């Protein structure tokens, strides 16, 4: 269940190369679970940018004078995200959410590893807290190209059992990639679940590492979305169902969180020939 509300900008602040936008979002925060996302209308009524932008929900505050507020972490990518970070206090923003399938939490108090790439750490905060509440061990790995593209390391440190940082250029933490350190960290805690959010190639490798260690992986993907609510079919990727059949599933409603071992990572961006209803011969 998602709702559409007009929120207001409460605050916008920089964090490294990102911006954190706090919005009032009455009615949305109450329903939010880790891994949910929102879509925001861009550019005002006379905007030439028709499509909403999808952003992971970072934090929610359900009470307080504003009756529900949420934070999102924005990396400026193009004109829509630029518009968002140019907002000022009290500006209205049209919000739809919470959207998507959130992370699935383990029933038991197992060990977990959370892996975030760049702003992909944003949804891991709520997740880490809820896992801790359930008694899970939570080891966190954050990676980015360079220090200023890490988000929230200090805050995550507070809630994590361990925090490991990697940067491509070695400007903070270990030089290298999150997947360089993941195996050892999984092994140390005997992790049963890996939660990940970040670029597709990262998710692919995280998922492979988890699977090779008989662990579950829960990966939040990022596919271009036109509607965000499941009606347009733009955001699909090939996913293997329980019946062993590959289908093109909508990442906005059947994701963005998928079981890593179900996603045909190497085939993302294609329609594998054994997909249900795949083109025969000349294609569609």
């Amino acid at each position, binding site marked *: 269940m998602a709702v*559409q509300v*007009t929120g207001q900008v409460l605050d916008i602040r920089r964090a490294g190369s990102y911006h954190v936008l706090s919005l009032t979002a009455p009615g949305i925060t109450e329903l939010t679970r880790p891994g949910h996302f929102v879509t925001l209308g861009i550019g005002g*009524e006379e905007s030439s940018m028709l499509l909403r932008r999808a952003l992971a929900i970072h934090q929610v505050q359900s009470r307080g004078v504003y009756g529900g507020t949420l934070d999102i972490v924005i990396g400026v990518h193009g004109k829509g995200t630029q518009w968002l970070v140019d907002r000022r206090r009290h500006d209205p923003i*049209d919000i739809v959410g919470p959207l998507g399938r959130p992370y699935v939490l383990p029933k038991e108090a197992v060990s977990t590893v959370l892996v975030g790439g760049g702003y992909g750490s944003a949804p891991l905060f709520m997740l880490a807290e809820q896992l801790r509440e359930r008694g899970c061990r939570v080891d966190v790995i954050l990676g980015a190209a360079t220090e200023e593209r890490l988000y929230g390391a200090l805050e995550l440190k507070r809630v994590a059992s361990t925090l490991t940082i990697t940067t491509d250029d070695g400007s903070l933490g270990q030089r290298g990639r999150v997947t360089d350190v993941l195996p050892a960290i999984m092994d140390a805690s005997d992790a049963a679940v890996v939660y990940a959010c970040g670029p597709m190639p990262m998710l692919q490798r995280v998922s492979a590492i988890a699977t090779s260690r008989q662990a579950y992986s829960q990966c939040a993907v990022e596919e271009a979305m036109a509607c965000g*609510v499941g*009606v*347009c079919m733009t955001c699909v990727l090939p996913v293997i169902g329980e019946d062993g059949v590959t289908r093109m599933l909508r990442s906005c409603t059947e994701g963005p969180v998928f079981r890593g071992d179900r996603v045909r990572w190497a085939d993302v*961006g294609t329609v594998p020939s054994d997909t249900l*209803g795949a083109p025969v011969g000349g294609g569609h």
Partner: protein
Amino acid sequence: MTRALISQGPVPSAPLPAVDMSTTLGQLHLPAPMLTASGCAASGRELDQFFDITTIGAIVTKSVMANPRSGRATPRMAETPSGMLNSIGLQGPGIDRFIEHDLAWLEERGARVIVSIAGSTVDEYGKLAARLRTVRSVAGIEINISCPNVEDRGQVFACRAGSAADVVNAVRRHSDPRMPLFAKLSPDVTDIVEIVDAVVRAGANGVSVINTVLGMVINTDTMRPHLAGITGGLSGPAIRPVAVRCIWQIRQAFPQVPIIGMGGVRTGLDALEFILAGANAVSVGTSVFHDPSAPARIQVELQRALGERGFTRLADAVSHAHRPADSRAEFDDDIDFISE
């Protein structure tokens, strides 16, 4: 600033004027004129959380084919100025599962449904129509003929009068004779009136205009076509003037043919424009992606706009822009000139 609140959903700020919003599309009577555009509302279920889908005229479902279909590879969309390109490739569950799953839900929900069908051959269209004959809850069929004909070098059915008529003919023959059929036309033709003539002769009760305009975007980073499908369909407000022109031309040529208008409708005034140009009902497509409550919101805005203009019946506004010129009323020399 408060203007942004317009996208807050269908909550009216002042009492709505009393306007009879019902409309007639040949044999099909609808209590309200707004529809969802095929492919932009799936089968209505997802939108029902944003507005009550039984309050609008009907849900036009995503074009369904005979068999399950994966659609094309991604990227399937690109944002363009005031529009978007899509190249979905008609992903869908196939007619059987659609009937069991989607139509059953819509029936239970009490929504009116126009089912959109698509085929790769004339025969497939006929089979789809025959299959739907057994289903009670179908209020009308929209025949999406903007599909490549696999038997004719991938020529799009809608682009030639002959192939367009063949498809409509097949559907007519396999449908209940009372089933309202709407042929959904492509604007990418030299003369749309000629196509309308062909499909009406072939048994269509009305037409739906317009489907998307063929377009393309090159990604300036990869320096290749952005869409996996290379070309795609342009939709959204960018194409609205093209849609209005098509509706106008069709209404000029066929004063009575029922028209479902679509293409870039975003507000009640846009819908009014379509109705004045000759549309009997109006579908909302791409704007749903911008505002998931758009169909219901626009319906309310349209009712208000009609009331403000003194209409008590939507039907009276249909084709009103075609009325003969009445120079006296409009170029009155005695108007209040310092109106500013």
